[in-house]
């Protein structure tokens, strides 16, 4: 393990991760804790996912009850884990220039993990198996799980939502304070003057993204509350709940949570990549409009999951299609073109972190394309209940958001420990990419052949796709093990790098 410094912070316009006098060391420590908890949970949830794929291949058959329990936990756990890792990275990145409270972030972690504990026990012990989308009225009418299990699942979501709310409010207040108001944190004057009015200091892209993410988090939690309160009242026998209302509110909550985890981790690219390319990522007008638009567009596209519900108003369906196209394009194009421009002829040294960030960009592109196709109403009506859907979200999750989070973790550890990754570890992103791509490609192929999703029992002619996927999962696991091993070796030094700081 070399001890040479990895990424430079000396180029103009690039903000080092550690603030002067290590004033943000305490926040960086929480950030590391979030990344460990988030990516650690991701690995455990990945093992569960592997069991599902083994079941679908007929190699290791699970009972239907266990398959659906695992499917429920895998879905809920993955969204929560990746979001947690992203939130940790985002807090670390923002703390370089914005004063955050490590205390609040630790409290958020305890509340968030309490929520995750509820979901784990509700599924593995309580047998809750209604899917992570907890679509009403199925959770309260389970034949193989009790109402207590459903309530435990909901309470778990409540705690995760409370943690997210506390985090979002804290970040929003902190960034607004730094720039003198929310409007300035969102660079609204600069936006509406088409980039001419530069009187206000512009936030760094990562701070702008943090403000955007926080606003959408608060909106998602509000929707979650509008879903959960009637559900709890229904469980208490006080009222009945309109199923379409429940479906809409739970999707505004859940779909936005899933989207948040992707956009949070995309924000990490803006924070880390400049350190490797030695070029600053400026807050341009294109960056501002792309990310400010996300505030509305991320909330507008949830209905593309409800195309099959004939009772849903047509207007919402059309809004979902337009919103799905629109949400993909600005942030997508701005981030990808911006990242490629930063990398082009920069003399970037391809260590593990930039390799993973680049992998994430391509995963995001292909996953996004799959999502745009699926959000097209005529396509959706054919493909929505097939493996095409897990294909697209696994692409932008596993090869996109998760790769971003691992990449940022490597960047943080390198910066804080002053060490380089092991030479052998540079194989790991390749294994990750090849294994992940092969695993996901088989979902796409299965989807194209109309293999249904969410089926515990697969017909013999469907099993071939999962069988081909299994070796790729093993390659992926090898890559992930390599990444985890390298981080474990250098983590202690990184942790020490945050200590002896002001405000610890």
């Amino acid at each position: 393990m070399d001890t040479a410094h990895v990424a430079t912070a000396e180029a103009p316009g690039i903000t080092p991760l550690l603030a002067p006098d290590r004033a943000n060391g305490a926040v960086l420590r929480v950030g590391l804790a979030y990344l460990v908890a988030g990516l650690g949970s991701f690995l455990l949830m990945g093992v569960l996912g592997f069991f599902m794929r083994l079941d679908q291949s007929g190699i290791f058959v699970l009972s239907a009850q266990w398959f659906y329990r695992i499917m429920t936990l895998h879905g809920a756990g993955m969204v929560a884990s990746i979001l947690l890792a992203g939130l940790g990275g985002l807090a670390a990145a923002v703390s370089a220039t914005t004063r955050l409270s490590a205390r609040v972030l630790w409290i958020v972690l305890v509340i968030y993990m309490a929520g995750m504990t509820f979901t784990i026990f509700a599924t593995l012990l309580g047998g809750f198996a209604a899917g992570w989308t907890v679509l009403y009225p199925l959770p309260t009418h389970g034949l193989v799980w009790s109402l207590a299990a459903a309530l435990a699942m909901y309470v778990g979501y409540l705690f995760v939502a409370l943690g997210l709310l506390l985090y979002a409010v804290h970040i929003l207040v902190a960034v607004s304070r730094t720039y003198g108001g929310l409007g300035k944190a969102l660079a609204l004057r600069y936006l509406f003057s088409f980039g001419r009015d530069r009187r206000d200091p512009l936030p760094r892209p990562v701070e702008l993204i943090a403000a955007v993410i926080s606003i959408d988090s608060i909106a998602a939690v509000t929707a979650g509350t509008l879903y959960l309160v009637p559900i709890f009242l229904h469980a208490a026998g006080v009222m009945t709940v309109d199923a379409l209302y429940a479906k809409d509110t739970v999707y505004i909550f859940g779909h936005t949570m899933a989207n948040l985890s992707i956009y949070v981790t995309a924000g990490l690219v803006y924070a880390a990549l400049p350190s490797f390319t030695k070029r600053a990522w400026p807050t341009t007008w294109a960056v501002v409009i792309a990310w400010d638009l996300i505030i509305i567009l991320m909330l507008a596209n949830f209905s593309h999951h409800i195309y099959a519900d004939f009772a849903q108003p047509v207007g919402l369906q059309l809004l979902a299609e337009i919103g799905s196209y629109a949400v993909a394009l600005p942030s997508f194009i701005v981030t990808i073109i911006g990242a490629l421009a930063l990398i082009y002829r920069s003399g970037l040294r391809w260590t593990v972190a930039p390799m993973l960030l680049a992998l994430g960009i391509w995963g995001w592109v292909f996953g996004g394309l799959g999502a745009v196709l699926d959000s097209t109403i005529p396509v959706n009506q054919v493909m929505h209940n097939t493996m095409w859907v897990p294909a697209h979200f696994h692409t932008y999750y596993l090869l996109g958001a998760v790769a971003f989070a691992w990449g940022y973790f490597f960047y943080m550890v390198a910066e804080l420990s002053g060490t380089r990754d092991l030479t052998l570890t540079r194989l790991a992103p390749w294994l990750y990419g090849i294994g992940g791509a092969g695993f996901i490609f088989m979902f796409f192929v299965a989807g194209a052949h109309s293999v249904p999703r969410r089926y515990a029992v697969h017909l013999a002619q469907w099993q071939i796709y999962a069988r081909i996927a299994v070796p790729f999962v093993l390659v992926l696991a090898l890559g992930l093990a390599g990444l985890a091993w390298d981080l474990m070796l250098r983590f202690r030094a990184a942790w020490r790098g945050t200590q002896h700081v002001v405000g610890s």
Partner: protein
Amino acid sequence: MRPDPVAFVWEWEWATPLGIALIVTQVVYVLLWARGGFGPRRAHLGWGRLVAFTLGLGVVVIALMSPIGANDERFLSLHMVAHDLLIWIAAPLLLLGGVPVLRDTDWLPRPLQRALAILTHPVVAWSLSTALLWVWHAPPAYGFALESDIVHGVEHLCFLVGYVIYWWPLIVPPWDIGWLRGNTARALYLLAGMVQSALLGALITFHRTVLYTAYLHVPGATPASALADQRLAGAIMWFPGAVVFAIAAILVIGKRAPQPVSSS
């Protein structure tokens, strides 16, 4: 099986020995508090300490003598409320009010000092509190406690003492800069405490048969009502625990560990 609400409220069970013990404890505490604590170094301890300790004893009274305690042999769910009150409310309050009265542990015999240091090590404290909570909720031990008032009393004393020890490293006394100085350690300790009690609560909630068979023999009880009561009891152990630990996180995380008291 369902009690008459009005009669239920007035159904207090005044246990004379326990009542006397609590009164004596309160009187001794007030005297020590007024004196400024044990040992040669005395100081005003503040009204907050007195209030905390008194409230802690009040919660013990509510847990064991109010209708909650009076009916804990009829309803497992009420029994679990009593346990929750003892471990999550009374124990930290008694610790908050009681520990400063000790001033320091220098006046204690050396073996006792050493024993206290070992017991309040976070790993030992967590293990001990976990073991006590789980062992006493094992159906044979629980059934034994229901059969004998003395064993039942010992059970509750174990919970109280076990959780005073659990909370000790978090409510660090001023002379003892504990192991849990960093927020990472405090967060992990809180999560470890929450997960074990939540797991126990979840196992009770989701168990498909009646674990504590004594409740099948309560007049008016049926297997279905006993199972429903058991599910509620498990949820009472599980759900509020998360709230308690979240509040505890708000109270103890981020606080700087107090500086050691100078011996001069």
